[in-house]
């Protein structure tokens, strides 16, 4: 029988991760690479490499036609999009469906339904999943005043209907600032997304980011693989993730798992996905945020506590296999923490630091896992994101995993470029972090100012 062939439409550590999963499954691989990536670790590991254009992402990794062409030319049976780039663009699965290529992810229709904020919210509403009190799309300030009255108290937050990543967002704590904030946010939304429509929601001041991993197959089976806490963020970017979330009350935990399974089952979700929630620490409630219809950066912490290889599982279900596990088979063991090691200079306001890695020494030991595409002598390009490696440590308890992380961070040596390792070391040593008692603003409000002070 002819071997199956998967085209990997990504780069960096996730391309390496996918290629290795394919190798384990005895599947051939084709990597699409920009001119900047033809010598990458993923390119060396893949069976075939197709150069799809110049380094700039719009001319290579975001060029859908080139990726479909590469798949057709090489006779690939399937495309794995990884995360980022085209991973959540419904046009990619649509193009795969048209060209008889298996897409390793959900159907384009599902992706569209979950990717659009308004339809995702109405789907959550239909499934009785809690959301923060808030409005439908707002256009005039009169509507805003009425909505804020309904919400009942400040603070509130304006969000762009078409938005994401914090753009067009404004938090309002005083009534007098409401009008200004509305004007600025709607103007920014118009500039950035071409649509001035805003939402207004009650702003959760003391919030945790907790998400549920799910995976479904083409036969209507869907299970969850527990939760991850990703409250350690800077500028809406996750820095540290862990599983299971510490100090999460059982009733809340179970309700969130049910909500995530219900929501994704209701659309026949048929690959790996993540349902993101905000947990209000003061009210002990949770609210639906969004569904990410792809594999996520932080998937290894789930793999480490469940023993399930999520990437292999998503490839197999995409090729039409039923899920290899039932919900009862999922057993959670110990604790896992992931730190994102990036080429950002912790001592210089996290200024990106491309260049050549002249020395690269990895930590080791039985409780350490590293997902990386870097090695001594490799070049970190200015064209792509700064993620160098994901350092994952495990332990029987959270304290063990955390102690292992401190050791591993101290052992991790990268020279030639600047990194964020010194900041991660500072972060994991904090008492609040050790206590598992942080919220999404903690890094920016408390830790960064203290870190900057320490550098002086």
């Amino acid at each position, binding site marked *: 029988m002819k071997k199956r062939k998967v085209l990997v439409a990504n780069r960096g550590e996730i391309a390496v991760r996918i290629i290795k999963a394919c190798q384990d499954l005895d599947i051939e691989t084709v990597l699409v690479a920009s001119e900047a990536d033809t010598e990458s670790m993923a390119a060396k590991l893949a069976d075939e490499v197709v150069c799809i254009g110049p380094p700039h992402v719009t001319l290579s990794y975001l060029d859908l036609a080139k990726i479909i062409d590469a798949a057709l030319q090489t006779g690939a049976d399937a495309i794995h999009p990884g995360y980022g780039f085209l991973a959540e663009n419904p046009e990619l699965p649509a193009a795969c469906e048209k060209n008889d290529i298996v897409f390793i992810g959900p159907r384009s229709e599902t992706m569209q339904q979950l990717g659009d904020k308004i339809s995702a919210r109405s789907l959550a509403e239909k499934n009785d999943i809690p959301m923060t009190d808030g409005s439908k799309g707002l256009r005039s300030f009169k509507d805003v005043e009425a909505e804020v009255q309904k919400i009942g108290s400040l603070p509130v937050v304006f969000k762009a209907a078409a938005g994401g990543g914090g753009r067009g967002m404004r938090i309002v704590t005083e009534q007098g600032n409401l009008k200004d904030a509305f004007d600025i946010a709607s103007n920014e939304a118009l500039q950035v997304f071409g649509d001035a429509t805003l939402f207004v929601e009650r702003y959760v001041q003391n919030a945790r980011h907790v998400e549920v991993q799910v995976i479904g197959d083409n036969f209507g089976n869907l299970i969850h693989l527990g939760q991850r806490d990703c409250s350690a963020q800077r500028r809406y970017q996750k820095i540290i993730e862990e599983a299971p979330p510490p100090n999460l009350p059982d009733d809340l935990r179970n309700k969130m798992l049910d909500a995530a399974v219900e929501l994704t089952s209701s659309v026949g979700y048929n690959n790996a996905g993540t349902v993101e929630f905000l947990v209000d620490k003061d009210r002990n409630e949770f609210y639906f945020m969004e569904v990410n219809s792809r594999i996520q950066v932080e998937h290894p912490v789930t793999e480490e506590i469940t023993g399930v290889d999520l990437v292999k599982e998503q490839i197999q279900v995409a090729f039409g296999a039923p899920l290899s596990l039932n919900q009862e088979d999922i057993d959670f063991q110990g604790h896992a923490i992931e730190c994102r090691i990036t080429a950002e200079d912790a001592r210089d306001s996290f200024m990106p630091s*491309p260049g050549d890695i002249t020395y690269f020494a990895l930590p080791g030991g039985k409780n350490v896992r590293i997902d990386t595409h870097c090695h001594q002598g490799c070049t970190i390009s200015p064209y792509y994101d700064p993620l160098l490696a994901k350092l994952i440590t495990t332990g029987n308890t959270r304290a063990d995993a955390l102690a292992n992380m401190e050791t591993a961070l101290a052992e991790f040596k990268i020279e030639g470029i600047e990194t964020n390792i010194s900041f991660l070391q500072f972060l994991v040593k904090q008492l609040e972090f050790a206590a598992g008692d942080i919220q999404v603003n903690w890094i920016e409000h408390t830790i960064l100012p203290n870190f900057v002070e320490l550098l002086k």
Partner: protein
Amino acid sequence: MTAANKNDLVPIQATVTSVFYRKPRPGEPPFVEEGDHIEEGTTVCLLEVMKCFNSVSAGVKGKVEQILVESGDLVEKGDTLMLIRPE
């Protein structure tokens, strides 16, 4: 006040290996053209590195004598981007 002689050209250099852009976004006019008179605080270009855009200010008052790189080019840390004649 720079130590340079009035007749010497002052280089504006790339502070980081990055992609050089002359315009704030596609379709808009460039920040500066050759021959423009600029202030110390005038933004002269953008440097994009790892999805992060940094605006570069002239750092010196004067006339833009020469722009040495094309918009969209990769520049290495230390490369000269423009030459300014101090005024």
